[in-house]
């Protein structure tokens, strides 16, 4: 039974716990975003203007960029599936899964899935489950709402509407663990249950934050490590990507990555940035098959309407966090006129939902906006949201869902969707009256007293206010204090620090550790940290991929090397590079450099020569090695989540400790 939008709004407004959760979300996200912007390499206005240009340029040359991306991705070995509708997308995913099921001789496959809004959009889980497969959401927030049979309430923090007590009860009921309100304990439960899923999953499904035309690779940003798991461990990886989520090259990607995490969660960089160029190459431990389903589902049609700028969106969720209406009602109250849910709530959802899925159902959502402009102010790609929302209201969104063979540009919907007839009638009469001043004068004389008199009977505060006389208040004794002057926010002076100091400070701020030692001291340095943790078994890169003599010295000291990373307490890797600005270690897949070494053990030790430090993300992404591997990962500190009540918990699916040995000389 679909819920009427009005009822959903009423029930959201009358839920004090939800209001508290949404208020806390807005306040903390806003503060975190402001803090994160202060660490940008250039002023925010400058960077977002450039980011808007980058995205607009892609849309202006969409066919060309798209072709280049698809060609390069195919050359890398991706199986590319171009689909125009949600139904085709489901069928295509199902077909890939069925082929793998036949290959394995199984009826039902275990599918581990990381967060993907496109999968919500196309209804993938339901389709896979209907075909007899088991789909497990592995992002903590998504996992919680999957257990509860709910929909995401936010595009970034799907369980934003729940309190720890709700999650505790859900875990108790569905997983049979004792009830707890301890967030770390709940996270540990999810880690334990899902670890088994990761290791056994036949297919991994993920979204894609960006497709890079230059390299033909995709980029995925995650924090918990589940995104790395599902794109590394299963033999088959299926990624879903909206057809518009492209950037031209690594230079543009660097800019996007400076803005996306800051806007989404207030992080300088997400813990993991995975660059997935293609399936595994000889000796690597990445998936044998990588499929990319590129979903149009109304996007090209949207590009032919005046709502095209909405396609710049990079799904950071900043507009949701900034929106005062979203803060009142939360994501679940954004429904079509017949109660159809949309995966895209909040300001961007008011534009994208009708533009993609049709205004007959979703046009009325555009009324959930006061046109205050806080969304546009927060948007890292300058989507002019109020203007676009006004265009949806004016009927510029197509009326129905996309159909193959539909002409471009599509027909327009009826204006003022969702405005009740009496308001429409009033505005229509008003517009005529206001065009005849004499008539207007009469109406005005009548309106004021009538509306003032009616005020107490209406729920409209404006009219209550209109009853007040503009009487100045009683004078108070003249205070002597002068007005407080406004101080412009002091521009934070950026101290230039050495790369080594910068790297260490940034990593430590993320909860990671840095040990500095000379090449000669390195084995002793590593041994000391192993002893500290009581670790006897490690999994590591191949001996000759580690600094000379390290493996030998560790073995001589009695350290056991195992191939099974899942049971090793510590994984030891080298690194391609380190990024000083964000405390990031860059690793790439290659023979002798398994990805799982930096992923499965509880602690990740990375050995990084100081000479491999670079200043910033852009310099790191320019490294040619990143294009010569199936998979590259940027790791910034231990895995983390804040999906339950926004309580930061370190150590989810990826390592809970990251120790970087900075080797001098």
């Amino acid at each position, binding site marked *: 039974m679909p819920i009427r939008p009005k009822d959903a709004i009423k029930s959201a407004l009358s839920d004090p716990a939800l209001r508290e959760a949404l208020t806390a979300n807005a306040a903390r996200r806003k503060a975190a975003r402001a803090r994160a912007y202060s660490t940008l390499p250039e002023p925010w206005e400058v960077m977002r203007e450039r980011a808007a240009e980058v995205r607009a340029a892609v849309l202006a040359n969409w066919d060309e960029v798209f072709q280049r991306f698809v060609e390069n991705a195919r050359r890398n070995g991706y199986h590319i599936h171009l689909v125009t509708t949600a139904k085709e997308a489901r069928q295509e995913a199902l077909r890939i899964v069925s082929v793998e099921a036949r290959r394995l001789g199984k009826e039902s496959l275990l599918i581990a899935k990381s967060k993907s809004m496109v999968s919500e959009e196309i209804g993938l889980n339901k389709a896979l489950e209907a075909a007899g497969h088991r789909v497990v959401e592995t992002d903590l927030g998504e996992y919680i709402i999957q257990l509860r049979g709910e929909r995401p309430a936010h595009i970034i923090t799907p369980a934003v509407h729940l309190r720890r007590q709700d999650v505790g009860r859900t875990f108790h009921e569905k997983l049979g663990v004792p009830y707890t309100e301890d967030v770390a304990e709940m996270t540990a439960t999810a880690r334990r249950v899902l670890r088994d899923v990761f290791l056994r999953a036949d297919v991994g499904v993920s979204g894609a934050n960006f497709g890079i035309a230059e390299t033909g690779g995709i980029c995925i940003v995650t924090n918990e490590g589940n995104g790395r798991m599902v794109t590394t461990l299963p033999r088959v990886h299926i990624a879903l990507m909206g057809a518009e989520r492209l950037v031209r090259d690594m230079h543009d990607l660097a800019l996007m990555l400076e803005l996306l995490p800051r806007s989404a969660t207030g992080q300088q960089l997400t813990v993991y940035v995975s660059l997935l160029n293609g399936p595994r190459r000889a000796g690597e431990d990445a998936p044998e098959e990588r499929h990319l389903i590129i979903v149009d589902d109304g996007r090209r049609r949207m590009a032919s309407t005046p709502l095209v700028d909405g396609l710049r969106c990079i799904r950071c969720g900043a507009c949701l966090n900034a929106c005062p209406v979203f803060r*009142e009602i939360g994501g679940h109250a954004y429904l079509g006129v017949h109660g159809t849910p949309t995966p895209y709530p909040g300001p961007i959802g008011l534009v994208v939902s009708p533009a993609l899925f049709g205004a007959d159902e979703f046009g009325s959502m555009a009324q959930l906006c006061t046109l205050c402009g806080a969304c546009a102010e927060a948007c890292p790609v300058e989507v002019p949201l*109020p203007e676009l929302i006004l265009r949806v209201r004016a009927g510029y969104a197509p009326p129905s869902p996309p159909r193959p063979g539909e002409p471009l540009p599509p027909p327009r919907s009826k204006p003022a969707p969702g405005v*009740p007839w009496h308001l*429409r009638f009033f505005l229509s009469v008003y*517009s005529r*009256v206001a065009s005849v001043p004499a008539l207007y004068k009469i109406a005005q004389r009548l309106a004021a007293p009538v509306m003032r008199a009616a005020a107490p009977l*209406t729920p409209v505060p404006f009219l209550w*206010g209109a*009853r007040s006389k503009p009487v100045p208040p009683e004078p108070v004794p003249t205070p002597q204090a002068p007005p*407080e002057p406004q101080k412009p926010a002091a521009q934070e002076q950026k101290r230039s620090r050495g790369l080594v100091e910068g790297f260490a400070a940034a990593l430590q701020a993320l909860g990671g550790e840095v040990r500095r030692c000379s090449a000669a001291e390195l084995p002793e340095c590593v041994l000391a940290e192993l002893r500290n943790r009581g670790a006897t078994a490690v999994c590591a890169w191949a001996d000759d991929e580690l600094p000379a003599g390290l493996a030998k010295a560790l073995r001589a000291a009695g350290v056991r090397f195992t191939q099974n990373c899942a049971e090793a307490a510590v994984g030891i890797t080298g690194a391609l590079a380190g990024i000083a600005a964000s405390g990031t270690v860059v690793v790439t897949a290659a023979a002798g450099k398994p990805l799982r070494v930096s992923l499965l053990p509880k602690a990740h030790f990375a050995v990084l020569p100081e000479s491999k430090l670079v200043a910033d993300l852009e310099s790191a992404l320019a490294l040619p090695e990143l294009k010569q591997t199936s998979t590259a990962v940027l790791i910034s500190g231990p895995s983390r989540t804040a999906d339950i009540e926004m309580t930061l918990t370190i150590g989810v699916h990826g390592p809970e400790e990251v120790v970087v040995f900075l080797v001098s000389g």
Partner: protein
Amino acid sequence: MPIANLFPTCLADTFRKRIVEATAEVLRRAGAEVRFPKGLTCCGQPAFNAGMRREARRMAEHTIRTLERYEGAVVLPAGSCAAMIRNNYAELFADDAEWRRRADALAARTYEFSEYLVDVLGVTDLGVHFPYRITYHPSCHMLRALGVDRQPRALLYALHGAVFVELPDADECCGFGGVFTAEQPEISRSMLERKVANIAKTGADVCVTADPSCLLHIQGGLNRAGVRTRMMHIAEVLAFHPTT
């Protein structure tokens, strides 16, 4: 003498005439020659915001035609109406070159009241004695659509005898949103409650704003909540005589 054509705007003119009178008074005192163009009604924003562009256009054309008969600046005591003319008329007439030209010409000489005082007339201190604890609600359209924030603040900081207190979360919407408040009264009220609570926190005698729509909406909320703070338009404050 600079000419200021005063556009009273429908809400102020209908529900709080004092704002219009005060605006004229302050403009005169600041050295402008104030004119009242005959036949002005509504800029068309309510219909435009509802998505009824044909109706909005009817009102916009009337507004443009009426003001074309008058030389000089057009001054509005309402940030959101000024934003409509300055930002949204261009969109409304995007497909009509001739009307677009006329709309642009009007937009180029249109000012919000405090902006006109500070940026055009170069006035900040009008010598007004206002012995109250005050705070300022920067309406969304002033702040984000027009980018006018420095000017009203300069005028308020220059008041004599006033204590200015910053409003917590000042940049947040009060929940009016034009048609929104009639369409979604529950959400609108819920947003208003937050604004009212923030105003109450300041302990201000007067909360100043430059948009009549926010003013009436918030005043309604203050009345219902029993908060004694009064909403005043910035023109009403600048026209204030302690003795009257």
